[in-house]
């Protein structure tokens, strides 16, 4: 259905205790800081978070973790120089971690958005991360069966939206945004500005409005 143009707080009201929430971003690039702040303020808890990393410093996802709102995180690369909040929660057993190779994480999210129930990938075969998973030899290559990941709400950092809800991104901040928007039952995109419909080139739209439930215009300061 048509995208709504609403506030961060309104959009976040779709997240409830126990929701699975996908957050775009690779490190801080593309992390939807404005929407995550609203999520922190909402006080919802027991969340499952899907994100590439497990927070940087004390803002964004790190703040959400520090607030004890997250029960579990699916990610590929939690440990970073500035992941101290996650590190402490993990070491004290206060958060569950499902570690997923980055490409498999991306493909599981993409599969959900594309209605593909599961797929076979060579990534991870013969490693700890494939233990207990089905393996099948396809054209002589062992491949592990991975399932699509259900997502209740996606919070995504875009660049510009038009008034219909089509979205473009900026440089490497694009990362997980388009696939998370496609996978979620309810997708929220924060953008720096909204332009009239028709101002974005139809050949260059990255996330068509069909994948967007809500747009939050928040004048985020992008990059440089």
């Amino acid at each position, binding site marked *: 259905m048509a995208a709504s143009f609403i506030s961060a707080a309104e959009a976040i009201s779709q997240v409830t205790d126990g929701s699975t929430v996908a957050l775009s971003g690779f490190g801080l690039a593309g992390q939807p800081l404005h929407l995550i702040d609203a999520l922190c303020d909402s006080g919802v808890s027991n969340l499952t978070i899907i994100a590439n990393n497990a927070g940087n410093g004390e803002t964004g996802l790190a703040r959400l973790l520090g607030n004890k709102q997250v029960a579990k995180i699916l990610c590929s690369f939690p440990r970073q120089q500035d992941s101290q909040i996650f590190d402490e929660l993990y070491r004290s057993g206060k958060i569950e971690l499902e570690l997923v190779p980055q490409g498999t994480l991306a493909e599981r999210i993409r599969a959900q958005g594309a*209605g593909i129930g599961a797929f076979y990938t060579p990534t991870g075969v013969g490693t700890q991360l494939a233990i207990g998973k089905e393996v099948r030899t396809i054209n002589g290559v062992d491949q592990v069966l991975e399932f699509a990941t259900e997502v209740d709400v996606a919070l995504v950092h875009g660049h510009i939206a*038009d008034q219909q809800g089509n979205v473009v991104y900026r440089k490497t901040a694009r990362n997980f945004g388009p696939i998370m928007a496609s996978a979620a039952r309810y997708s929220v995109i924060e953008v720096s500005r909204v332009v009239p419909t028709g101002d974005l080139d139809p050949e260059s739209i990255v996330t068509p409005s*069909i994948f967007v439930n809500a747009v939050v215009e928040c004048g985020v300061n992008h990059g440089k």
Partner: protein
Amino acid sequence: MASEPLTKSEIAKLVANDIPSGSYVNLGIGLPTLVSNFITPDSDIILHTENGMLGMGPEALGDEIDLELINAGKIPVTELLGASYFHQADSFAMIRGGHIDICVLGAFQVSLAGDLANWHAGDPNDIPSVGGAMDLASGAAKMFVMMTLFDKSGKSKLIKECTAPLTAVKCVNRIYSDMAIIEISAGGIEVLEVFGISEGELLDRIGMN
């Protein structure tokens, strides 16, 4: 009850009226394309064409014709403001992933359980062609079928079990036909409206009485 069966245009108009504002809609080739004639710009309905476009506009005429801008029926169309283009895997991700709110397809047969047969009339001499019908039938959030209720020999196309090859099982939510609008759900069929026939006679003719 209307006193006459509906014309194709009248059926199309009913379908268009039942599509909520803001919906993303895919109209199958053939009969369903008529629906686009009754979609008004202020309805905010956005048309998807599975060959790779959202925001499809009306058929292109005269100078508007661009052979690289066509619909799934290979007819030149136009582009509305807010349109976007994408490749086939992304287009069918929209379909298979349940992002199309409503799909309207034609049919040879629909079963009482909502099975759809619309890609192959069943004649072994036919050249089989499926296109996106199976993806649409199994992927769209809601599936409307638009057809005449009886074939040229008078046999009901809504039948107990399809005899023609299936497109998808239990996928049809509603039939818009010349003689009735029929809802199909897990609980069975429900005749919502009849045109030029009484409900009793209709149920007789489709073998339900």
